[in-house]
């Protein structure tokens, strides 16, 4: 089953440069903020500086008087007090869900929540007017820590709910029957001298998706349909949800996602601002635009991760794992957004990963805090799961004195065991962990680096070397609709496509997924070119406009190719079926006598043939076609997958840790990923590189930090450290190809794999470098200070920070620059 990459002669598998890049890179395209309509007004949002406060007064008079201001509105002014932003994933029947108005009503629940909006003739006037709106607050105690939020007498984020607990969700293999009871297995291991039980707590810091294009929305109420352009990943979901949220007839709403500059899950949302733009446009009868600043984006767009993970692993002392128990405390933030409570569930089935745990228990407790709501961020639940289990396998190896790679190999599913149904009830269709790992080890020089590590340890080198491993799998291609239904998700996971063959033989293919940087236009064209036998250049991919792409479930969860691409294939196959009927009619033969190759139907054993383009024109003319057949080749298909896809791979990281400063330098990074068959290796490479960058960023750089008052202190890109190419190593990437068996192309997803796999590889490497000094854990991100303190602490030489007085402000961040600052 497993093959290494082969050169290709067709379009499928060709490393084509992306056809959309010229317009995207030069910016000569339509981003939402580039759209300007006659008479358009601009919205700006007045946001709360406090995390938790009662609104005691809003004075809009001064703002109303400013030139260019058309209106200043509160929730009451807009009649929006009763509106609640949608949450599509009620994970349990008794889940507690607060009302989530688009603007705060009476009380603000996180710093950055909208309190009022200004509508003005231009963006500058709106920005001035925001500063003139006076809001009086009565500060309430912020709720910042998920554990204390559940304590008796804790301040409640939403008093009407009576608790800060949103939901409690459990999976237990003993109850489901997919394995033993984990609690029993752990208890047995504790009583067994030949077994070991390892418990660890990990912390998933809060992250900010940090997509390149800030969010933007334009609404035009002047047509028969209310038209919304939005920088969104999910135009179809947005259309339906906007209609449901505001009680609009769905057929009166059109949503367009033009070119969208990245999302990473951060634009898988129905935002307060989208709802506000609809309300204001309808009220004022004029087009309106809202475009956020980067600071607003950091503060108010949803965040990701934010979990505390308690893991228990039981194993026999020979290394065989016998039980896994996972208990999560997950921070919802102040409100439930579109899929907020379900994010940990996307990880629930992946903690057992590639290992044959016979017993598994998963429980998550979702908790409200007065912070920015959390929701999907690249990987969504699965990076958390992969991090925890891959860190845990290293911890188990340490406890047992085993090589961490050998221990993994001892417990993973072998290639001859596929398809394999896991203790979490998923059936992994295909994979070959042995081949990917062997290849990665060879590219990495695993043995050579281990030898160098020993030399550095013996020499007590100030720069120590560590090796980190992540042998991951993930579930993607969201998702089989029935599975989503079983998980109480409100919608399905199918995807739709239609293919139109034009009179001149050119092809327009409409896809229901909504690319925002993935390269769908190129990849889909490659698939169609091969399958239909038309030139790559003759194909146009249409998407993102609900008037053109009427049906779709959009782009997230590495689903576009494995679901949306397959819908395209199914639609193309229907086109070929219809064309075949026409070809038989025109060539006066039976369909059974025809063979189809590279766009041409030929009567077997003859030189009589007809091309798809000739058939297209004949159908267009419709002068001569069989009775009872519609004169059309156009076809559509809806594909609902029967299973997820399960990419896997082995990531190896060598990290140098400067024990004098705590600085981590990634010396080399090797990953061998198996994403099944590959349509375009360049696109896969790009996805892997970007994914690695974001996963490494979690390990070393990024964190959304709140102070004790609930203020986001990492609110600019000067403080929230998104790494650039200069901060990342050269990536050595390679692939194995074990085709997925769940779809006709054999493809798996690749959009999230790099992010999911890389974080534990890096942290494991950092710890491996300093573990011999006595360091047992370092919280993410592994900043130089954290690493240095961990080493100092292990050496018993740490100094208390409280001995040192703290000056009011440090240099080195925009937030530190005050109005008295000098000129630059």
């Amino acid at each position, binding site marked *: 089953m497993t093959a290494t990459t082969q050169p290709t002669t067709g379009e499928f598998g060709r490393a084509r440069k992306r056809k959309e890049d010229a317009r995207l890179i030069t910016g000569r395209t339509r981003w939402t903020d580039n759209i300007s309509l006659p008479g358009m007004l601009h919205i700006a949002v007045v946001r709360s500086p406090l995390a938790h406060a009662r609104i005691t007064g809003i004075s809009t008079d001064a703002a109303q008087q400013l030139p260019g201001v058309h209106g200043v509105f509160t929730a009451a002014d807009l009649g929006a007090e009763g509106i609640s932003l949608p949450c599509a994933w009620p994970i349990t029947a008794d889940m507690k869900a607060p009302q989530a108005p688009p603007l705060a009503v009476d009380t603000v629940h996180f710093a950055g929540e909208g309190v009022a909006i200004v509508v003005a003739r231009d963006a500058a006037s709106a920005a001035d007017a925001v500063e003139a709106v006076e809001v009086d607050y009565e500060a309430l105690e912020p709720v910042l820590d998920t554990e204390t939020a559940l304590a008796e007498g804790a301040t409640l984020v939403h008093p009407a709910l009576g608790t800060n607990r949103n939901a409690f969700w459990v999976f237990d293999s003993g109850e489901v029957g997919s394995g033993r009871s984990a609690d029993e297995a752990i208890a047995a291991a504790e009583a067994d001298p030949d077994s070991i039980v390892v418990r660890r707590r990990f912390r998933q810091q809060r992250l900010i998706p940090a997509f390149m294009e800030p969010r933007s929305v334009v609404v035009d109420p002047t047509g028969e349909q209310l038209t919304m352009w939005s920088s969104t990943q999910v135009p179809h979901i947005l259309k339906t949800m906007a209609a449901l949220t505001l009680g609009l007839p769905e057929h009166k709403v059109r949503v367009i996602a033009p070119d969208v500059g990245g999302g990473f899950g951060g634009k898988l949302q129905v935002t307060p601002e989208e709802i506000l733009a609809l309300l204001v446009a309808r009220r004022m009868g004029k087009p309106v635009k809202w475009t956020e600043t980067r600071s607003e984006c950091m503060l108010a767009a949803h965040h990701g991760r934010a979990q505390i993970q308690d893991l228990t692993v039981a194993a026999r002392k020979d290394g065989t794992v016998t039980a896994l128990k996972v208990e999560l405390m997950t921070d919802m933030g102040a409100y439930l957004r579109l899929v907020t409570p379900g994010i940990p569930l996307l990880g629930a089935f992946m903690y057992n990963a590639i290992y044959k745990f016979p017993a598994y228990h998963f429980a998550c407790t979702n908790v409200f805090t007065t912070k920015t709501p959390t929701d999907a961020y690249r990987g969504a639940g699965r990076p958390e799961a992969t991090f925890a289990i891959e860190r845990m396998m290293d911890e188990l190896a340490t406890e047992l004195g085993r090589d961490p790679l050998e221990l993994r190999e001892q417990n993973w599913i072998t290639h001859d065991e596929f398809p394999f149904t896991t203790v979490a009830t998923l059936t992994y269709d295909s994979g070959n962990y042995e081949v990917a790992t062997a290849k990665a080890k060879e590219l990495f020089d695993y043995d050579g680096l281990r030898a160098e590590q020993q030399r550095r340890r013996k020499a007590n080198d100030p720069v120590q070397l560590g090796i980190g491993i992540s042998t991951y799998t993930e579930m993607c291609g969201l998702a089989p609709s029935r599975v989503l239904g079983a998980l109480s998700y409100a919608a399905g996971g199918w995807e739709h496509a239609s293919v139109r063959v034009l009179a001149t033989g050119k092809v327009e293919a409409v896809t229901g997924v909504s690319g925002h940087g993935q390269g769908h236009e190129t990849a889909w064209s490659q698939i169609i070119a091969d399958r239909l036998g038309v030139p790559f250049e003759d194909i146009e991919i249409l998407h993102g406009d609900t008037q053109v792409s009427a049906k779709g479930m959009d782009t997230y969860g590495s689903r576009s190719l494995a679901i949306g691409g397959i819908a395209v294939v199914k639609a193309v196959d229907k086109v070929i079926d219809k064309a075949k009927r026409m070809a038989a009619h025109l060539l006066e033969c039976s369909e059974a006598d025809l063979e189809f190759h590279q766009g041409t139907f030929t009567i077997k054993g003859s030189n009589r043939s007809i091309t798809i383009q000739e058939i297209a024109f004949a159908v267009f003319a419709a002068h001569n076609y069989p009775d009872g057949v519609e004169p059309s080749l156009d076809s559509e298909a809806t594909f609902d997958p029967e299973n997820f896809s399960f990419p896997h791979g082995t990531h190896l990281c060598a990290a140098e840790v400067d024990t004098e400063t705590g600085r981590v330098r990634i010396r080399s990074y090797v990953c061998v990923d198996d994403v099944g068959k590959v349509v375009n290796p360049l696109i896969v490479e790009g996805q892997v590189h970007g994914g690695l960058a974001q996963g490494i960023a979690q390990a070393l750089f990024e964190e959304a930090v709140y102070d004790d008052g609930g203020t986001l202190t990492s609110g600019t890109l000067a403080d929230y*450290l998104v790494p650039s190419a200069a901060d990342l190593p050269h990536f050595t990437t390679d692939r194995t190809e074990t085709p997925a068996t769940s779809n006709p192309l054999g493809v798996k997803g690749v959009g999230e794999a790099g992010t999911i796999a890389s974080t534990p590889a890096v942290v494991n490497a950092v710890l491996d470098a300093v573990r011999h000094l006595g360091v047992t854990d370092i919280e993410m991100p592994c900043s130089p200070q954290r690493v240095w303190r961990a080493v100092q602490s292990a050496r018993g030489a740490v100094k208390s920070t409280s001995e040192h007085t703290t000056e009011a402000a440090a*240099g*080195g961040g925009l937030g530190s620059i*005050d109005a008295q600052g000098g000129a630059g």
Partner: protein
Amino acid sequence: VIPSAFDYVAASTVDEAVQALSAAGEDAKILAGGQSLVPVLRLRLATPTTLVDLNKISELRGIRDDGDAIVIGAMTTHHDVINDPHLAEHAALLALATRTVGDPQIRHRGTLGGALVHADPAGDLLAPVVALDAEMVIAGPGGRRTVGAAEFFVDLFTTAVGPDEVLVEVRIPKKTGWGAHYEKFNRVAQAWSIVAVAAAVRIEGSSIAEARVALTNMAAIPVRAYGVEEALIGQVAEAAVIRAAAEHAAEGTSPSSDGNADADYREHLARVLTERAVAAAATTAAGG
């Protein structure tokens, strides 16, 4: 965000700029390269009533050899500082530090004078000019005056340049044949220094004849590490000597704490980075 409204004056001479500043009063700001000011304006952390733009004043740009000093016009860009042969020969420390500022786009817009007058304690060009005993020439309504680097930096974001004054040029006494190194510590490449150390040494024979060490972001203003310098002078430039001297690096500093580093960690970094900076400077000096 969009900056709040302001008046804009594009001065074509230093005198015009000074007049415009005098006329505008306290709430005027000077626009040089704009690499710090524009973000501050966009965040509305500053809301000046008038911006006086120096970009059209050609006399403020350029680097010249003035005998015993190299003179750099205040509006000279970082890119030009990095690539100037006079500086490479006579004041390499400044060029080395400037290489670490921002990215190529920023280095083509940002200016030496702008960075110095902005006086961000984490800015990378403050410590080098202090280490090099530079002199700043400031123009005001009453004419020009010269201020030594040690007196130039007054406090956080505050220099000796008054509200109606303009920094005109920076004079750096030649340090020909000195070894130099700027050791910068930050978390990502495009970030301010958490701590950095500017070091320059002159070697005679195998001994350190002169040494200059100054620290970035270890106080509200750049700190000259006199204790380190004294411990180096007259000593053989070897690892043990440098390590012992670097132990003095945090003396007289008052570092702040922030999300990247608490004060004690900054003090520790100052010692480690000083050792590395001096060792590297000594190597380049000895190696010619």
